[in-house]
């Protein structure tokens, strides 16, 4: 049995410790906001927060996630998360929307560490989150908007 602490609750899972965290989240806990895109940490669609840091859940083994503090898109909260989600909606960022959970999780990590990111900072920090619909220009604008709403300068 593996104890997974996710979104503030502890769950006992009878699963292979080598199973990627992504599949435990989606198939065993039925939290489907976290997406499968590549399975190899190449696209960022599966991004969650582990101990407050953006992490690709497709490439973290369940055994290594045990006991750590995991947050998925369904349970994000606080001023940064609210600013990011609000800006995403104000700027009509989404198209198909499939990558956006991961984009939002990465953006929250970025803004939590850097309240006033430059375009360069954004490009560097969001490099691993792919969007096939090409919403990048709006993602960048929404991160700047979030920063402004949070009191940063950009």
């Amino acid at each position, binding site marked *: 049995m593996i104890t997974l602490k996710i979104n503030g609750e502890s769950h006992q899972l009878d699963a292979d410790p080598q199973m990627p965290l992504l599949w435990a989240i989606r198939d065993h806990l039925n939290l489907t906001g976290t997406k499968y895109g590549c399975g190899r940490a190449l696209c960022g669609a599966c991004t969650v927060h582990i101990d407050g840091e953006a992490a690709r859940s497709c490439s973290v083994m369940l055994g290594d996630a045990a006991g750590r503090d995991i947050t998925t898109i369904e349970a994000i909260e606080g001023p940064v998360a609210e600013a990011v989600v609000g800006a995403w909606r104000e700027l009509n960022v989404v198209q*198909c929307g499939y990558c956006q959970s991961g984009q939002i999780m990465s953006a929250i990590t970025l803004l939590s560490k850097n309240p006033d990111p430059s375009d360069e900072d954004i490009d560097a920090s969001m490099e691993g989150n792919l969007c096939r619909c090409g919403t990048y220009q*709006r993602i960048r604008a929404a991160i700047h908007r979030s920063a402004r709403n949070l009191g940063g300068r950009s």
Partner: protein
Amino acid sequence: MNRSTGQPASATRRQFLKAAATGAAVFAIGFYLPFGRRARAQGVPQAVETPPPNLFLTIDADNNITLISKYLEMGQGVTTGLATLLAEELEADWSQMHFEFAPNDASVYNNLVFGPVMGTGGSTSMAGSWEQMRKVGAAARSMFVEAAARKWRLPMGELKAEKGHVLHGSGKRASYGELAADAMQLPVPRDAPLKDPADWKLIGKNLPRIDSPDKTDGRATFALDIRRPGTVTAAVAHPPLFGARPTGFDADAAKKLPGVLDAVQIPTGVAVLARDSWSALRGRDLLSVEWDNSNAETRSSEQILADYRRQAEGAGLPAANRGDAAAALGRATQKFSAEFTFPYLAHAPMEPLNCALEMKDGEAHLWAGSQLQSIDERVIAEIMGIGVDRVRIHTLLSGGSFGRRGNPVGDWVAELAQIVKASDSKAPVHLLWSREDDIRGGFYRPAVLHQLEVGLNDEGDISGWQHKVVTQSIFSGTPFEQMMVSDGVDHSSVEGLADTPYQIGDFSVRSFNAESPLPVLWWRSVGHNHTAHVVETTIDALAAMAGADPVEYRLKLLPDARDRETLKLAAGKSGWGGNPGENRGRGIACHRSFGTPVALVADVTVDGDAFQVDKIVAAVHCGVAINPDIVAAQVEGAIGFALSTLLRNEITLENGRVQQSNFHNYVPTRMREMPKVEVHIVPSTDAPTGIGEPGVPPLAPAVGNAIAAATGKRMYRLPFALA
């Protein structure tokens, strides 16, 4: 905030009618509409045949209005667009609007541009529903007003509809939800007047996307997110060569995994059924499969291209022929001749292909981001041996498509049906394609070869244009063949070229159908994604040879006002003619597809063999912009999508094996590569034309022409090679 679950309509059409008949707190509107013949993917449906009844909206007692969307939402904003048209004529408040996807029933939910087919594509949705959805809204509004008039014993003329309510000067007020049961008993007016454009409150406004809230908090339900009790997940070992067939397999190692339940052979490979996704994928990797490669594609990309060149030496089929191109070329004083090549391309939507099928009480229930429901239902019915009327498709949000989910042979849906049939599974089965399955799964944009020769006379005017196109036909052998193929020429192989709006007097295009077991498919903007590059690169080169300004040269050849206005708007907004600076180049391209001209001005910086696209100024003429912000988003997105094909994307074969597999060697555009994009819309109240695809075709030539401006080097192959 709007609340839309993105869940499919739970009720079938019969159930809707039943709910309507019992007077439950559901208002369902039946409506008669013209049933169009197809009008080749360019525009508005034609009138008029005996029409079927349609059901497009429900209203509950709390005054929530739910659009029943017959189109798949794959990111293009169609649910917002349809809801806007409906709400406009209905006089609804935007906050009331929700959406669901329609059940599969082409007698009601057919795409009026396609004909008797339920499906989404060809950038037809807004053009095809512009009249229909507004008429539905206008009829419903009239019914609510009439219901209130009867209830209050007042003349209809004294009442008005506003924000989902009917009002009277006396202060009487009733919500549509309150009036629904009474309104439903009234006859449907067939000619309720549509609003004057001057009175539009929602059309033309930047309303927030109706699907945005759920797509930003994890609630949006894509096909991969559907959870049916007892679901079994299936992953398939596909053949390493296109056209190969499985002849036997050994699943002993796979079956030792605790989560693996079964393994079955199907025509497209061997499927592992397992308790969860991880076990299915692992089990699949442990299979050992024997393949019959006797009919497989074993060539490499270079050989295929060499075969294309050999084929181009033949006669081909006439796709366009006017004047005498050969004679005019003989009179020419300058000639431009070139060969252009394009690789196979995968669509690679972010959500890999997947769908779930459950056999229950003799019916097949499919959950999928279904883009061609009329195909998918038929495919399932045939494989499962049931009537098409026993197939229920629950359409769900799709994580992109770019053409991949609308397959005339329904490959992924068929594969799942074969698994269910072979395993005789009583449990729902969810087929999951990995990213590797997706990148290696075929149904690519075909590889294409263009060879052309164009002459100029002393005045710099075109004197003869001879052109050959070699590629695999996308439409031949599909149910859409009659629509798109005539006398052997697949229109999609030459669209945007054979019907170019440029006035060319002596013009010949010949089409050559290449053959391969590798399956091909439409890929965002279909033939335009290669023809636009060839035509617009050539026109740019001709302008240079004629010593003319590229914008002026194009204007001289373009008679249509829509093309001209679009080109001039892009040139004007970009400050065309300025000098972009050292190591930088500026290029322009203009191309019309799906009825919509798009002109792009690209600014690029060239650094050795590398280039960066700094900025794109776009102009677009799509008729009325129902939601200008979504129009802009589609053009921005099309540029981001297409850019990867200039930078690096290609599917290559080595002895038949695909060399790419995942996002490390088939890398979509990344954020740092995204140029600043500015979108300008030509103001118009014309009926809307397409917008999902038309932003793609002009990107490659605009950037290529900018690179040529900076370096003198033309881009004859995709992806671009500056070295």
